[in-house]
């Protein structure tokens, strides 16, 4: 493998129902930073059926170039045709870095492609940067520069590891949704669009989709919320979540919750923040009646401002909170809602 041949930062631009997923824009935002450090270009790889028209959007979010594989076999996600398409793109274009979203699609596609093109893959990264490997020069070992350093949590968020892929290309990573920042879209930006079709020959690995069943629940995605009012076991009952809903409404926010609440059956899983739920980074995160188990903190600690209300002064949530209030949530939260209502009304 001639590593020098591999150039450019590539992003798998996931689309579902011919709509580009938010993760693709987030990855483009990060890819732009990496490409700048490497003095190279950002390329989006867009796979699907009837999706050529989406290329401009990718340009607006930072893609210099878009490779489009447009084929009826790629209509709905199936591992094999997608893996064939993406690995063919890799073999043809030889990217230095290949980023994939750590979504239900990306976490299936990424490993299959990495095994096919025989390279390493680092899963669920939260930080990507360009640097040296080894980090510090070690006598007797060549220190390689311009490596992709991929940082990810492990052991349920208890440890963190930085991983490199120094001797194989591309350097592949899947990246957690909601972690990277997309850029402000540049209206009217155009990318160099290139069509590529490796040809598709169905075999036993082409599975058949018998049916597609979409979830009916149309809930707000807590990952998109600017303000989250999150409740834990301390709320006491599903009914008592009303006081959090009232607070969220005043602030234009959304209610989320801890794992304990989901386990108790008080709230659905899609509102769960944490290692086994969603990673969120709102402007303000209210942690109310949440003790702050490490698995929860792993999913919300990147929030800009964390306000915690808990009756237990020793609750670990106070270790990450910017503003911690020790007290009875049942007394404080309704009053806070009223006070904010008055403030907001006065400001108008």
């Amino acid at each position: 493998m001639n590593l020098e041949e591999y150039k450019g930062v590539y992003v798998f631009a996931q689309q579902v129902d011919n709509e580009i997923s938010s993760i693709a824009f987030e990855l483009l935002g990060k890819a732009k930073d990496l490409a700048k450090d490497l003095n190279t270009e950002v390329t989006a790889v867009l796979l699907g059926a009837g999706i050529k028209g989406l290329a401009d959007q990718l340009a607006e979010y930072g893609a210099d170039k878009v490779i489009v594989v447009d084929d009826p076999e790629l209509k709905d996600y199936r591992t094999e045709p997608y893996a064939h398409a993406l690995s063919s793109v890799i073999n043809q274009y030889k990217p230095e870095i290949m980023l994939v979203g750590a979504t239900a699609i990306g976490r299936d596609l990424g490993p299959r492609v990495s095994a096919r093109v025989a390279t390493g893959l680092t899963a669920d990264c939260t930080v990507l940067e360009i640097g040296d490997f080894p980090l510090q020069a070690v006598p007797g070992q060549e220190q390689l520069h311009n490596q992709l350093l991929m940082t990810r949590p492990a052991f349920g968020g208890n440890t963190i590891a930085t991983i490199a892929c120094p001797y194989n290309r591309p350097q592949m990573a899947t990246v957690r949704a909601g972690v990277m920042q997309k850029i402000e879209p540049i209206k009217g930006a155009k990318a160099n669009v290139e069509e590529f079709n490796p040809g598709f020959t169905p075999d036993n690995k082409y599975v058949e989709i018998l049916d597609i069943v979409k979830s009916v629940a149309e809930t707000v995605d807590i990952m998109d919320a600017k303000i989250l009012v999150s409740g834990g076991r301390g709320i006491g009952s599903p009914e008592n979540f009303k006081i959090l809903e009232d607070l969220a409404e005043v602030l234009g926010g959304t209610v989320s919750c801890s794992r304990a609440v989901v386990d108790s059956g008080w709230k659905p899983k899609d509102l769960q923040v944490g290692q086994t739920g969603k990673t969120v980074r709102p402007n303000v995160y209210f942690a109310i009646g949440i003790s702050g188990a490490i698995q929860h903190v792993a999913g919300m600690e990147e929030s800009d401002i964390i306000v915690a209300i808990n009756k237990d002064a020793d609750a670990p949530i106070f270790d990450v909170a910017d503003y911690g209030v020790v007290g009875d949530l049942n007394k404080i939260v309704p009053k806070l809602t009223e006070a904010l209502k008055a403030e907001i009304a006065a400001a108008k």
Partner: protein
Amino acid sequence: MKIVVCVKQVPDTAGGVKFNPDGTLDRGAMLTIMNPDDKAGLEAALRLKDQYGAEVTVVTMGLPKAEEVLREAMAMGADKGVLVTDRVLGGADTWATSTTLAGAIRNLEYDLIITGRQAIDGDTAQVGPQISEHLDIPVISYAQDIKIEGDSVVVERQYEDRYHVVKAKMPCLITALSELNEPRYMTPGGIFDAYKQEITVWGRADLKDVDDANLGLKGSPTKIAKASDKVRKGAGEKVSLDPDESVSYIVDKLKVKHVI
């Protein structure tokens, strides 16, 4: 039908994580369990066995101690256990692990391979799909329901906002979610029987069609540059006031930060 289930012995992070004084994880001090997603995969296999009749072989790669999860699987109802253990296999990343497991599975007959979606220590979700690639068979990840129809499997494959009902010809690899089922308990008699059975132990020499260059730490494309106990952002302020003062305190902070 022959089903191979891959399982991993992992530290029980739910039971509290212990650290060495230098900040690294004290694996020796933590209890070990069968990885929850893998256990759901095993339960899925045992239910297929109950329903359609099948021989279930459980495969694990790890230290000799990992034999325990094979005994546990057998006490739940698995028929055979294979332990893949060898010093040269240590330090493997997902590529090297999947290469190893594929090398072991090539020695076995199978219609279906079931793995857990991901392990709670690494959380990578890679080994299952990578094994399927090495064996050149279809993969269906994130299974929330599994049925057999003739020579095919019909699986509900979960996505964030939907699921696909997917049909694949066997042999096929499926990765299971812990939501898939509630794994059964062992039985007391099953435990004693499991310890009476022979476990197959394979080393490097027993792996089929694998290259040394793809095994263990040396064969791992990804390298750890740094590992540490997670550094957390420091605690901010903490106040203990009466409810009215608490409210004023929060309102003031939100004003200062221009939230309102």
